[in-house]
């Protein structure tokens, strides 16, 4: 059946032209690959769609953080000014939504920023101190004049020889097997 070798990270393939790597990415997407990536020296407009990437899920954690912060700010000001140590300041009520609004607002912003910052770490799986691709001599050229598509071994479709041939059929230049 599938000759998946656990020590293989995936297959990398280099391209020389933007249009080549762009159309190759579209075909990989259409073939239904899930665990794969494109590495380029600069952003290529439209690559998100060519790869079929969904929107980042980070904004959900931002919203969650914001709502948590809003509730925290409300509870914080209510507990301190109205419950634990009721105190009249400037003839204002013990608690209303108006006078502590700067506190509530700042808590909302702070927790939303936490949600964004840590959400980004969670969804990017950071910190990540090493990656098998860094061992690849060709990978340094991806920050210069080469484009690269990597099909990862953890994808259910991965099969060493078939994936290699698939990449060749897309117009790839140099195929390399990446080992963990």
């Amino acid at each position, binding site marked *: 059946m599938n000759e998946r070798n656990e020590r293989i990270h995936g297959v990398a393939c280099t391209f020389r032209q933007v249009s080549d790597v762009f159309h190759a990415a579209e075909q990989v997407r259409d073939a239904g690959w899930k665990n794969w990536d494109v590495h380029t020296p600069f952003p290529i*407009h439209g690559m998100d769609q060519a790869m079929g990437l969904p929107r980042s899920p980070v904004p959900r954690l931002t*919203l969650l953080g914001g709502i948590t912060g809003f509730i925290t700010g409300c509870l914080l000001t209510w507990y301190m000014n109205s419950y634990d140590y009721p105190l009249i300041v*400037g003839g*204002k009520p013990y608690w209303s939504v*108006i*006078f502590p*609004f*700067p506190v509530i607002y700042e808590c909302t912003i702070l927790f939303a920023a936490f949600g964004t910052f840590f959400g980004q770490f969670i969804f990017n799986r950071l910190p990540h101190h090493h990656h098998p691709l860094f061992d690849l001599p060709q990978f340094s050229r991806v920050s210069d004049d080469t484009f690269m598509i990597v099909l990862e071994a953890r994808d259910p479709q991965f099969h060493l020889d078939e994936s290699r041939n698939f990449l060749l059929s897309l117009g790839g230049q140099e195929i390399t097997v990446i080992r963990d």
Partner: protein
Amino acid sequence: MPHALTDHWKKFLVAGVVALAVVWCFAFNGVSHDDYRQGLSVLVGAMFWISILIGMLMLTMITRVFDAGWAPLIRRNWEHMLIALPILIVIGIAPLAFIPASRHLLWEWTNAGHVLPSGHTVGADPILQAKSWFLNENFFLARIALYAVIFGVLAILLRRWSFAQDTDRTAGHTHRLHAVSAVGIPLSAITLTMLAFDCLMALSYHWFSTMYGVWFFALSIRLALAVTVILTYKLSNGGWLDGLLNQAHRHVLGCLMLAFTVFWAYISFSQYFLIYTANIPEETFWYNIREIDAVTGLKSEWWGVSMYMIFGFFFLPFLSLLPYRTKIVPGRLLTVAWIIVAGALADLWFNAVPRQLTQADLTKFPEGFTVAPFLTSSLFLDLLAIIGFGAVVIAIFLRGASKNETIPVHDPRILESINYHE
């Protein structure tokens, strides 16, 4: 070859002139009967569009200064519209200010014989005397003229060099416009602040807020963006932006609308918050007459308007604009734009209309005044004034589009703008 849409400019001009003639007739009839409210309709209608045009002027200069790559395609439409700004000050604000009868009715501080709820006259008001270095009629009229001149010169310069680039293909125009905008932004910031002070804040001259200028700026940008969304939606369905306006342009406009919705709320709340916290009578009365019926002491119609602004003009657009899809689906973005336009109108009403109307009979009116109500038939005259001034602005816009390129074809960033990507 001008676009077929531009042929309609004469119809809009005729419609605008007819509507404004009706509004001015009502206004002068009101003035001759000592009723300020119809004159206020002219002011509200003019300020609504002046606010939109000031927002577009600021956006034009800001996108110039920051060399915004997405902007040229959309900015050309602002440039077509900009020249209406000085014209509206001349045909909308100047007659109200320069004709003594309407000036004395609308701006009570210019009428020394006007009796205040306290029983004193404006002429004997020590608060006005302390402010008279700024609030005196000659300086006031000079300022109104100066606003038209400053905005006029900026509009002319921003348009001239941008249009010149279409024919002579010189990149130097972009640098010149960059320089004009760098000077124009602080200049316009001061001018729009003073304009907001004179045309809205001075309607209630005891009251003062140092945040008023920035509130007016926030409102102007919100309105300008909403009108831009509506305009570009029309122009991309059978107009000259057909097939050019893409998802990324809508996304950037949606993001800016969201940002300035939050900014407007921040400024409006802060103004209320500071006055609420400090609790000084010269400041709090302004919010009191917008919340409490002076006769019954109960919540008034204006309280309803302020609640509408909190929920309909902040929470509704804010929560609607949070999801990504609202900013890219044309119909949804258009709906939010209309919500913002409606809310901005409520905000203008809230700032311009309520005023203390002196009542001498203290048995019936314990505070010595009543507050001008919200729900009156004059609201229809306000809407007619907005339609009238709007039709004139659209006529000027379409005429500009018929005389010059509708797309800045030789702007150095036009390709970047057309192919703009998120």
